[in-house]
C-alpha cells in the first residue's frame, strides 16, 4: 500500500513552487510589519494563492511532450 500523502505535504510542495509570489507577498508585509491590518496585502496574497491553487492541481497530461513532437 503506498503511503498516503498528507495534506500538509501537498501544501508544502505546491507552496514551494511559488517562490516569486511568496517573496513579493512577504516583502509587502515586511515593508510595514509594525502596522499590519486586515487585507493589507490582499492583492499580493491573491496572486500567491492563485499560483498555489494552480500548482496544487493534479497534473493533467493534455498535450504531453511526445504528442507535440509527433505533430512536428
Amino acid at each position: 500500500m503506498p503511503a498516503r500523502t498528507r495534506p500538509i505535504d501537498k501544501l508544502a510542495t505546491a507552496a514551494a513552487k511559488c517562490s516569486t509570489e511568496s517573496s513579493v507577498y512577504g516583502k509587502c508585509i515586511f515593508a510595514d510589519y509594525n502596522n499590519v491590518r486586515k487585507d493589507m496585502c490582499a492583492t499580493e496574497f491573491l496572486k500567491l494563492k492563485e499560483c498555489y491553487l494552480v500548482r496544487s492541481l493534479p497534473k493533467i497530461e493534455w498535450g504531453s511532450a511526445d504528442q507535440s513532437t509527433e505533430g512536428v
Partner: protein
Amino acid sequence: MTTFSIRAFIPPLTRRCLPLQATRRYAVQAPGAPMLEIFSGQQKWMQKERAASDTETSRSVDYLRDEVASRLCERVLDINRHFPRVLDLGANACNISRMLTLPSEETPDKGPRSKRIGTITAADPSETLLHRDADLPFNKEINIVRDVLTTSELLPYEANTFDAVLSSLSLHWINDLPSVLAQVNNILKPDSPFIGVMMGGDSLYELRTALQLAELDRRGGVSTHTSPLADVKDIGGLLQKAGFNLLTVDIDDIVVDFPDTFSLMKDLQAMGESNAVLAREKGGIHRDVLLAAESIYKELHGNEDGTLPATFRLIYMIGWKPSASQAKPLERGTGMFSIKDYLEKDKKPGEGKE
C-alpha cells in the same frame, strides 16, 4: 498498610476521568489566587500518545530532546556524588536515561555517564511515549523503572524519596509550576539537587511572529498558536518560592534550520509538542494563514540559503533542597581575595604580546 486498588484494571482512558479520591499529597497554591489553567492536560496527553504510536517518525524527531538531555547529563556529572535513586520527571521517551548510557562527549573513553546513578525512575503521563523505546538495548545498561503518571501535575511519591530529580523539556506544559516544584522539593531527600531544563521565553519566536502577522493580514486578528512560556527572570523566583537553595539558572539557545515552516510544524507535531493551550482555536490553522506565514517567515527571518531558523531557548535550573549540613554562601564582604585580580592574573602576560 497496602490497600487493594482496582485502578490498574480500569482502561487508561476511563482511569483518567476518575477522580483520585484516595490520593492526598502535598501541594501549594498562592493564597487567594485562583488556579490558572492554561494548557489542556488531556489534549497534551492525546498528542503525545498519537505522536508516539508512529514509532519511526517519533524517533526521527528526537534530535532536540536527545541533545538537551545530553547537555543535562553533563550538568549531572558536574556534581561529584553518587545518586542511588533518581527521578526523571516528564521523561518523554526516556531520553535522559538513554543519554546517560552513552559516554560523556568530553571523555569518550571513560565509560557511560550513568556510573554514579543507581535506579532511575522515568515518570510521564503518556504511556505509549514512555514505553516507546522499552525494547532497545540501552534498557539493559541502566536500571530503569517506568512509571505512568495519572496527571503531570501530581507526583505520587513519598516525601524524602529521591537523591536527585531531573526533568527535561516537559515542565513547559505544566499549569501550576509553583505546586509541581514544591512537590519536587518535598520528594527530594535533604541536600539533594533538582536539575531541570525547560523551554522558555523566546522559543520559536520566529514561528510566533510569522503566524501572528499572517493572521493579522488574512483574518484581521490574532489567536494563540504558540504557548506562553516562562521567562528566565521568573525561574529564580519560582525555585525560591518552592523552597530551593543555592540556585543556578542559565540559558542556552539551540537554533535548528528547517527547509520550510511546514516541516517545522510537522516535526513539532511528531514530537507531541503541538499547541495545547486551552484558549486555542479548535481545528487546524486556516490554509491561507499557513501559506501567508510561510512567505512571511522566509522574508522576516529566513537565512540567505533559503532555510528557516527556529530558535529553541532552553532554561537550565539547578536548586538544592535545604539541609542543615549544606554548604552556605558566605556573608557579603567576607571575601579574602578579589576575583578580579585572580582572573586578570592569567591575562597580563598575554596582553603585552598583543
